[in-house]
């Protein structure tokens, strides 16, 4: 038994582990696979998308800037050609056309000026007083001198404002002039400033020397710009996408694009955190869900098998208990048969012994033994043999009735009738002991399908016990029947006395076989255990409540079937 229980424990343990492992494998693998595939694909797609988006943006804007520059250059070149062919007073020409440009393009063109070969601006139209300004040493003038047109870098120049210049050569009346226009830095800057993504994404333009050509809000330092750009790898119109790391270890995206018209670079810079913010948020969410999923799986994997195994083990236990019960009842039946056999076999020898003792008694009377001094002892001994023989008889008879297959023919019984019969049977004895038996019988109670003689045995036993208990002072026994309110489809018989009661310490032993409080030889201790067995067999139950000096109450629940009632009703109607 011990061994089998440990074996079973090991078995349950293995079973639990198997289920756990199975659940883990079956749920973890697909989840892990799905999550990682989705994650990888999403990562790839999203990165591509971000890259494309930014590249596109940068490209478009550099094109815009290109267009802007070539348009402005075009304007000035047109003016220059127009001036060449249409000889006018320079000052008047500039005045007229600046007004025209301003009305057409807004505040893009700040001023116009004509400069002679010596670098002196002999004609000027604009908000600054720059007539006769000498540009001969200015970088742009030197650069512009040998080219048909030139766009300068941004510089402060004479006026102390950042600006840049478009200069176009003009040939008029045999002289070379330069037509110069200042482009409003603000207007140009706004083109680049409008590229703004997230918190840190911003664009700026640098010239060939790596100097900033636009204002930058991002706080990009002049020193860091040089590290961003490797000019050598820029060819044509390519947009280059790169991930880089600055001196402080911050990672950022760097998208660069070369402008067509001028040797400037458009650079877009965004912190990596910022660019992939949404993506990383999604990543975090996925991770959280994944971890929660894992926790859920672990929880299920470790609790579910436990519960399942618990259920299995309780079912096992139940069936084991049932088996035990079957074995037990089988054992009881065997013991019963054995007891019956023994009782019967003993009964005959005891009868013979008693008869022989009686015979000696008879003979003693006949013999003349008056002077025999032990005559009294003889008679006493013979009487004792007789008494003990009777005691044996009683025990064997009880044993026989305990073991005997009673008349268990099952009938539909109205228990009220059975009770009345038993009350009548015990009436004589009750009267003799000053006991009054009252019955409160509910006539509504249904018929039950049981063995009537067994039920009578139980009731008779309980009444006899009650009478025995109240022998000295008399009392009242109340027998009630009704349909149970607690148990569905059960009826209750209660047998209540106001006798001395049963002390608590023996109350839970009274149904044990061979337990008796009666004097040796007076009771066998089988009565209540027989009752208990009978009620159990009927599928009912019996319980007892007792208080010392107040009384004892036995209650018997017996189940009934609905169909029995219905059948009876039908019969009554027909």
């Amino acid at each position: 038994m011990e061994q089998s229980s440990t074996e079973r424990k090991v078995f349950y343990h293995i079973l639990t582990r198997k289920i756990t492992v199975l659940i883990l494998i079956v749920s973890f693998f697909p989840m892990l696979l799905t999550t990682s595939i989705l994650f990888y694909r999403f990562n790839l797609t999203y990165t591509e998308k971000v890259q494309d988006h930014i590249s596109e943006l940068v490209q478009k804007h550099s094109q815009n800037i290109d267009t802007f520059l070539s348009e402005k250059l075009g304007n000035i070149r047109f003016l220059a050609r127009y001036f060449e062919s249409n000889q006018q007073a320079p000052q008047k020409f500039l005045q007229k056309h600046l007004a025209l440009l301003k009305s057409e393009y807004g505040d893009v063109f700040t001023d116009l000026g004509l400069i002679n070969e010596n670098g002196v601006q002999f004609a000027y139209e604009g908000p600054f007083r720059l007539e006769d300004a000498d540009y001969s040493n200015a970088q742009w003038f030197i650069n512009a001198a040998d080219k048909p047109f030139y766009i300068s870098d941004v510089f402060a120049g004479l006026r102390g404002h950042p600006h840049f210049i478009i200069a176009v050569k003009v040939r008029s009346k045999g002289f070379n002039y330069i037509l110069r226009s200042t482009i409003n830095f603000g207007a140009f800057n706004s083109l680049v400033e409008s590229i703004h993504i997230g918190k840190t994404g911003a664009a700026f333009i640098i010239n060939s020397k790596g100097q900033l050509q636009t204002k930058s809000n991002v706080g990009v330092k002049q020193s860091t710009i040089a590290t961003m750009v490797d000019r050598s790898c820029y060819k044509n119109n390519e947009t280059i996408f790169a991930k880089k790391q600055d001196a402080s270890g911050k990672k950022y995206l760097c998208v660069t694009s070369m402008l067509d018209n001028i040797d400037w670079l458009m650079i877009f810079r965004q912190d990596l955190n910022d660019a992939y913010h949404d993506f990383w948020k999604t990543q975090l969410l996925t991770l959280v869900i994944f971890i929660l999923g894992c926790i859920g799986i672990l929880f299920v994997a470790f609790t579910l098998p436990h519960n399942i195994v618990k259920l299995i083990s309780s079912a096992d236990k139940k069936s084991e208990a049932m088996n035990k019960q079957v074995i037990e009842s089988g054992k009881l039946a065997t013991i019963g048969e054995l007891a019956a056999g023994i009782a019967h076999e003993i009964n005959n020898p005891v009868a013979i012994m008693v008869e022989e003792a009686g015979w000696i008694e008879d003979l003693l009377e006949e013999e003349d033994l008056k002077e025999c001094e032990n005559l009294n002892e003889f008679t006493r001994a013979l009487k004792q043999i007789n008494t003990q023989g009777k005691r044996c008889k009683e025990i064997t008879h009880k044993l026989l009735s305990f073991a005997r297959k009673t008349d268990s023919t099952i009938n539909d019984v109205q228990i009220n009738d059975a009770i009345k019969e038993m009350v009548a049977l015990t009436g004589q004895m009750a009267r003799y002991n000053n006991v009054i038996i009252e019955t409160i019988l509910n006539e509504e109670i249904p018929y039950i399908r049981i063995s009537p003689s067994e039920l009578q045995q139980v009731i008779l036993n309980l009444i006899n016990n009650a009478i025995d208990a109240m022998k000295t002072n008399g009392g009242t026994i109340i027998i009630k029947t009704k349909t149970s309110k607690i148990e569905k489809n059960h009826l209750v018989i209660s047998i209540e006395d106001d006798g001395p009661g049963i002390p608590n310490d023996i109350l839970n032993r009274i149904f044990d076989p061979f337990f008796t409080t009666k004097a040796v030889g007076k009771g066998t201790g089988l009565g209540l255990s027989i009752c208990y067995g009978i009620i159990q067999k009927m599928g009912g139950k019996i319980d007892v409540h007792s208080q010392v000096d107040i009384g004892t109450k036995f209650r018997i629940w017996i189940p009934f079937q609905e169909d029995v009632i219905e059948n009876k009703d039908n019969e009554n109607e027909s």
Partner: protein
Amino acid sequence: MKQIKLLLVDDEKPFLDTITKRLEKRDLNVSAVYGGNEALAELENNKKIEVVVLDVKMPGMDGIETLVEIKKKFPLVEVIMLTGHATVETAIDGMKLGAFDYLMKPCDIETLVNKVNDAVEKKRLHDEKITEARIKEITGRQA
């Protein structure tokens, strides 16, 4: 009063022997046999037997069967059942089949003697009535 003629039937020889002695001592004319068939044979031989004390549990032909046979062949003979089993059912069965009474083994000798006396009394009353009836019939015929 005429001596009572009694037949004891039991398979338990020592019991039977002792009880025979005790009953004889109480002035009864006792024959003892050890089985149902022998009992029937004895009844056949000895028409004077008035009461049969019959053990219920016997090998071969048991008490109840024997009772049925006795009542069939000798309806006027009274039978007292003696049982080792405390089975009310067998006793009741016996009574239904015409037994006079039943006693449980081991029984008090005085109780047994009293029962036997009662049975004999009843039997003799029956016999008297039958004799009377015969006489009446015969006299009636003559008249």
